[in-house]
């Protein structure tokens, strides 16, 4: 799972609508991938992502220290860094914890498990 997907997922336990995003990544294992650089891809993708959550997550993982707000102009160095963050960081295992209700979503074999128990639906 890449951080792009992490940026799209929120807690969906019934009634949990406060602090349900971003989910906190814990005890994760990262595999570094090599992906082809494509500046247009990065720019298009950034328009769709929640920058604040991305900055917060990459900081807490010790991957990057992004500015708090998305810069208006992205220089090459920044684009390269974002390329690495978005496409080359693959989370293979660990868990995502909701900061609102503490629900734990495990990640196994690179696939986040968003299933809920019956009482949470």
């Amino acid at each position: 799972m890449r951080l792009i997907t992490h940026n799209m997922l929120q807690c969906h336990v019934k009634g949990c609508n406060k602090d349900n995003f971003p989910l906190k990544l814990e005890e994760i294992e990262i595999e570094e991938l090599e992906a082809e650089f494509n500046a247009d891809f990065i720019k298009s993708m950034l328009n769709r992502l929640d920058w604040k959550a991305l900055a917060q997550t990459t900081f807490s993982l010790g991957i990057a220290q992004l500015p708090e707000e998305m810069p208006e102009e992205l220089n090459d160095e920044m684009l390269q860094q974002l390329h690495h963050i978005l496409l080359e960081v693959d989370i293979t295992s660990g868990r995502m914890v909701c900061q609102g209700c503490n629900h734990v979503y495990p990640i196994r074999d690179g696939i986040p498990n968003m299933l809920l128990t019956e009482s949470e639906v």
Partner: protein
Amino acid sequence: MIKLKQLESLLQDVDVFEKPKIQFEQYPTSAHIASRMLYTAQSMYDDIEDKIVADLGCGCGVLSIGANQLGALYNFAFDIDDDALAICRENMEGFEIENMDLIKVDVETLSLRDKVDTVFMNPPFGTKTHKGIDMVFLKKAIDISTRAVYSLHKTSTREHIFKKAKEWGVSCEVVAELRYDIPAMYKFHKKKSVDIQVDFLRFAHPDDQE
């Protein structure tokens, strides 16, 4: 853009279920049908290239992989079944796809932070075990998208679906009528294979600027 024939032949290399599970109505989407759904979506409506695409009940991933081949920006493939996701992952690796992720989820409870552009799906028809599941998938697909939903439904449910689409504020168009050949994969199938009439439908959101 690659040609329809090329797309179909590429999708013939997508591996399908080893042991399909009846409770999830795991019928594979054939390369023939998948390639036509995707090709239409891109060539007639520009709903794939540079778009974020989701696949609800992705199974082995043929629709997601096809969308990727037609230039989708990113693919999210959702399924509830570990075995389907494992095959989907192998397919993804076989095609060396980098801009796609898999998510294990019950489509009924799925919620996303942001919406996707387009949804492709071949939902369970909901005939055997889980009545109404087709409409649950459809409602979810419409809720999480901003642009269009492409889906397959039994022709016998057409009137009902048109009524629901109106209620949900989306337009609905029958793109094609198909004969869906379901091979005898399960014990309850008495005949070798059954042809059922299926509609290939496109639902569009009204704020679609196209």
